[in-house]
């Protein structure tokens, strides 16, 4: 039987630790692009959270911050309402002041 959206979500619920997209695709027996589609779906539905490349993205100077490291995009389960509200600018780091 082909992998369903529900199985993708269950994978997140039942596994621990870091997994790369190709690893997860292999485990579920699905094409990487299809898996990406399915993850996108759950992100749009608000069940998965996507963290972008910007690490301290809340900082108003993030775009020009020399200490900003290009970090990978990650996806994880959203646990009931604990997603932090990002408060705005001025991280105060030396380069941003």
């Amino acid at each position, binding site marked *: 039987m082909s992998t369903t959206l529900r199985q993708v979500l269950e*994978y997140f619920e039942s596994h621990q630790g870091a997994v790369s997209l190709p690893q997860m695709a292999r485990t579920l027996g699905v094409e990487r692009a299809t898996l990406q589609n399915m993850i996108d779906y759950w992100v749009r539905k608000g069940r998965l959270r996507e963290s972008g490349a910007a690490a301290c993205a809340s900082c108003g100077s993030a775009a020009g911050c020399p200490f900003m490291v290009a970090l990978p995009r990650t996806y994880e389960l959203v646990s009931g309402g604990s997603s932090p509200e990002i408060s705005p600018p001025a991280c105060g780091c030396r380069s941003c002041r």
Partner: protein
Amino acid sequence: MSTAQPRVIALAGNPNVGKSTLFNALTGGRQHVGNWPGKTVEKKEGWATFDGQDVLIVDLPGAYSLAAYSVEEIVARDYLLRSRPSAVVAVADAANLERNLYLVCQLIELGAPLILALNMSDMARGRGLKIDVPALSEALGGIPVVEVIGTRGVGLEALRAAILRRDSTPPPLRLTYDPPVEAEIAALQRLIEDDAELARTIPPRWLAIKLLENDPHLAEQLDSRPALRRAADEAVARLTEAFGDDPEIILTDRRYGFIGGVVSRALDRSAGSAETASDRADHIITHRLWGLPIFLLLMWLVFQITANVSAPLIDWVDGVIAGPVTRWAEALLSAAGLGGGWVESLLIDGVIAGVGGVLVFVPLLVLLYITLGLLEDTGYMARAAFIMDRVMRLVGLHGKSFLPLLIGFGCTVPAIYATRTLENERDRKLTGFISTFMSCGARLPVYVLFAGVFFGAQSGSVIFALYLLGIATAIATGLVFKRFVYPSQEPRAFVMELPPYRLPNLRTILAQTRERTRGFIRNATTIILVSSVVVWLLGALPANLDLSRFDVVEPQESLFGSISGAIAPVFAPAGFGNWQAAGSLITGFVAKEVVVSTMSQIYTADATAEEAEAAPPSLLEDAGEIARSFGAALALTAQELVNIVPRTVNLIPGAAMPEANFLGAAPEEEDTAALGLALSGAFTPLSALAFMVFVLLYTPCMTATAAMRHEFGGRWTLAQMIYAALAAWGAAALIYQGGLLLGWGG
């Protein structure tokens, strides 16, 4: 422009598929940019003339689907429903066809008069993907499919011709669902068709499907039709019971199934490997066993390069500042009649010794930023977080917690703010707490100074060990918290989109290095300048504030010396219970580089007082010496760079690869710098090591402390400061006392 009613063509597609490039290629300069009514989403329209016919092209916002999840999706959907364009060109990234087909599938369901433009088809071919265009067209119900390369204008004529040929009839394809779903769709469709006004506005089958998907945006528009809404709610309830799942998920799964079928008919991946070169490299680099040693080896190389390769250039800058620059400043002050007094002392012993003492480390920071930039730009840094996941889970932390910690190697402040990317408060607070143990760039000058004086060629390894100790302390602290503060909470899975490996872009790395170095220099000319002046002032003032002895007081009897001397005994068990070390650690709270600038001020003031008078060289002689010593420093730097290879090979037990010495005889040990000499008199290798460990672990700088207070509150910050101070003192004392017990000498 002709007076006939123009054809209106909509461009739809996922974000980043080259839609705007194609829009520009089709319209040229005839564009109008505004906003969609009532939205902040940009609206772009442009005119084009195809075969003598005027065509208005509307660039719809990038959207992944026609659901109502984002404002872009709502705008695109509303436009297609209300304006009914003559044709819709769905722009798809040919290299990511499967991902793009979801929107195409939804456009087919909407009944849009569709043309599929496969953009970037050259890149798809480059990746070994072969798209059978006729088969793709057939699988999608016969819609026209055109291959284009928007950036090069390839395929535009064919696309224009397809647009002109396309009539507004919807695609004949109908995506069918499981029988119970089809039955509910049919029932709702009949109800919608009975409402002539509604059926005229929205395609009935599409609306029925959307109602089963509980589309909130459309449901709102049907408030005045309670019977239809009730029927939809009842249908949703029946399907939920029948399938044991949300009907929207059942419908979406079916679409993915359909897309899978289309792809299997039209896409041939056999020419390209399912595994990319990056995937194959990751089998080794992120391997469960090899990943960690590779990570450690790379970090070792980073510190070999930064510490050893930069050493000759650091010595050169130090020589220039301590020699010609200081002499020129003295000469200028003498010429202005200010020589010999407190003004000269302020400038030479305060500003030049303090700020200059930190600026000598610019070559070191440049090399650190370049090497870290290389790791980032090749895509390795992302893997480091992936590899460290298991280590982080040991301490009950999410693997993602290592990402802020990685940033901490640059600066602790953004690392603390980066904890915001973590999901729960426990992870955020704990990661912020341990992030201060990751050795920031500002602490590196302290290590390089001490390791250079006391550990010579081994300084790179010593510094590497210090970084490892920082990571180990962070892990140990996590374990303490897991045991006593936060009971275990198993971290869940997270999926990482590891970027493909690529050759580093030198221009990007150099630009980033320039910005980071500029930040370091800005710091030296602001915070460190001010603290140098304050330290000088406190060092010039006698402890009893007797102004008649201003600037002539013995350093240890000054206000600074007295305060530092009172605290110094605390550090005696760690082997550095002198007032100079204590004073430097106090001022290090302002910024860690200030430890070096303060020491430079204290010790060089002592040394210059003892210096014998000698005839100063002329300006020309100074300039010649600066150029000559720079050449020598560059040659030594090159030799150090080459020697990274034998030093790395020699890590293998039994290996003894000789180091290169193409400069002839080993250069004379020229560590006659005043600060180095003074330090070798005041510290032993063991107490120097204890001092470096203390600097690594003790209370972070005031900016990082403020950031922590802002993020986690005053009590948490105070707890962290006390914990860090105790950990630093404990570790330094343990090293010193342990070393003495082992007979390593005091």
